[in-house]
């Protein structure tokens, strides 16, 4: 998985986007039992060669969606096409889709080598060709020394690599990853996030990644779909989803806390519990309800208010020192407002300090409740 430009195995397709791997989901419904709805009408297009992430809390339907892509679950309604071919009812062993399972699901009675060779053996790839490809992927993912080990002799990170190698060696059109990093400690996770993303870019393979960790999703993905209650809330590149969440659920899930209900609107002035705020431009008729989002990191705390900014008076109630940044819990008109300041060596505000809060009108985002 670690990419070194010199040792690039030539059989691994590089930068070649496979047109065969575009995915289209239409009106997918999935119920478990009588009333447990896992997916409630999902329409989604995943482009070929894209690193696509399904993001949401547990029970939002993201894993069910992944399992439908793998063929391990059948939808009650709707259709699924991969590369223009309808595979809604195709059994898993006839789909060019491989999965890295959350539990890795490595075969405990087989060695690392035999685990990796499993898919090729099932496909009936001839022994010599099989050996060559297994060796190649082992070099690619740096598993050389582990090949004869048994699976239970591996660490978590090594298992993760074997699971990835076992899926990649089959060179599927689509690779599915079901929270493959959730069992690893933070350091290793950060490292593998980068490696995984590089691997995907290098192979040009379509990756569909499932996670509940919004930071992980943002670091790795080309595009993110946020799911809740079996419905896709928003699809977009990380920056869009983070900076312009479409509704309060997405905003909260992406880690935002400063959400204020719109009480009344006149022109470009909007009244909320925080007081009156000026927006960059007047809200359209259909936008005059819902909420305003002020991201923590856009709030400025300082004596001077820049030209055109909204100015509020607040008191510091709590201070969290996080090293690279400092988080303040402010009270403005009896309402809590969170602000994050980069730690640039400036004097920190103390608890109890009165501060002037400046917010640029551009940085205030309106969204649905």
């Amino acid at each position: 998985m670690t990419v070194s430009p010199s040792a690039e195995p030539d059989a691994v397709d590089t930068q070649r986007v496979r047109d065969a791997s575009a995915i289209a989901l239409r009106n997918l419904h999935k119920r478990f039992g009588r009333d447990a709805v896992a997916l409630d009408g999902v329409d989604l297009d995943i482009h070929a060669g894209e690193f696509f992430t399904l993001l949401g809390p547990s029970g939002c339907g993201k894993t069910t969606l992944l399992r439908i892509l793998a063929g391990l679950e059948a939808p009650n309604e709707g259709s699924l096409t991969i590369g223009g071919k309808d595979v809604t009812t195709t059994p898993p062993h006839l789909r060019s889709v491989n999965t890295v399972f959350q539990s890795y699901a490595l075969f405990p009675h087989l060695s690392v080598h035999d685990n990796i060779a499993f898919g090729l053996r099932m496909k009936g790839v001839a022994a010599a060709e099989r050996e060559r490809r297994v060796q190649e992927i082992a070099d690619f993912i740096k598993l050389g020394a582990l090949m004869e080990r048994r699976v239970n002799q591996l660490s978590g990170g090594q298992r993760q690599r074997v699971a990835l190698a076992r899926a990649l060696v089959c060179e599927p059109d689509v690779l599915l990853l079901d929270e493959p990093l959730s069992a690893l400690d933070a350091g290793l996770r950060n490292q593998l996030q980068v490696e995984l993303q590089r691997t995907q870019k290098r192979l040009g393979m379509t990756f569909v990644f499932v996670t509940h960790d919004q930071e992980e999703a943002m670091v790795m993905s080309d595009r993110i779909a946020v799911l809740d209650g079996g419905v896709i809330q928003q699809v977009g590149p990380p920056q869009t989803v983070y900076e312009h969440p479409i509704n309060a659920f997405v905003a909260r899930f992406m880690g935002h806390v400063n959400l204020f209900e719109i009480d009344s609107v006149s022109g470009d002035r909007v009244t909320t519990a925080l007081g009156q705020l000026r927006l960059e431009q007047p809200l359209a008729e259909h936008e005059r309800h819902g909420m305003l989002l002020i991201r923590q990191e856009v709030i400025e705390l300082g004596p001077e208010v820049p030209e055109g900014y909204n100015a509020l008076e607040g008191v510091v109630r709590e201070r969290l020192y996080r090293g690279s940044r400092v988080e303040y819990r402010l009270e403005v008109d009896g309402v809590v407002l969170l602000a994050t300041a980069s730690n640039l060596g400036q004097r920190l505000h103390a608890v109890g300090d009165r501060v002037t809060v400046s917010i640029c009108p551009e940085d205030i985002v309106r969204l649905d409740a």
Partner: protein
Amino acid sequence: MSKPESPYPLAAHSRSLSPDTRHLLWSVAPGVIWIVVFLVLPSLYLIGVAFMTNGPYGQPQMPLTLDAFSQLAGFGFLGWSPGNLYTLLRSLWQTLLATGLVILVAYPLAYRISISREKWRALMLLAVVVPSWTNQVIRAFGWMNLLSPGTPLAELAQFFGLIGPNMGLYPSNFAVTLGLIYNFLPFMVLPLYAAFEKLDYALVEAARDLYASPLRAFWLAVFPQTLPGLLAGTVLVSIPAFGMYVVPELLGGGRAMMLGNLVASQFAGGSNWPLGAAGALIMLLATFGGLFAMRRIGKRLSGGEEVVI
């Protein structure tokens, strides 16, 4: 100078053992004594008897010979007869057949129970186990009633021409096989159920995801996981089946005798203790041989991992 000699050498010795070791000795002692008195000594006696001469009243006596084994192999004063060899082969065949058929019945049954709803599972397992709470002899008599001439089962078999008119399905080798299956089914179902219950279904999905057809996914992902249960069940079934006494005695009639009956008759009739002991010894050796073979098979099929039987 060394330290002064203790007036109680034994106490000094026991003080040299750590408390843990002493505790261990005390806790295993009753078991060891039990095994020595009731297993090791009688076994040694039995092995000794097997090599002794049969006395005029069936009691073992000196000198040591291999007479009992040659008798077991069929050599008597009237020359060689294959009777005992048939009994030995019949025991082996019945054991293999019954064990195989028990697996065929128990494997899907255990799987079906394991995927049932939780509240049904206990009930279904109970239904498997309950018959074994009844005395073996009574159960064998039950089968006699079901299989004797004139019963619906016997008439059905006659209708299909499997047996002659006015015949029963008992006594016969078939009845013995049936009796063995019936007797030992729970001993196969329970370990298999335990294996199925902790089956990691993710491995099956992984196999399916990696292009294994349903059949191959079963063979490569399900079967290896149930192998320990299968081997445990096979041991639990085949060993007692090999030495079975009641079932062949009651359901087999005179012609379906197994090794257990041969051994019993040599002791109970008081006719020939060395011959009985030799039969028991052969049984013991066959069992050890079987266990050893199973270990090897288990080790190979599970890819070198130790299978505890």
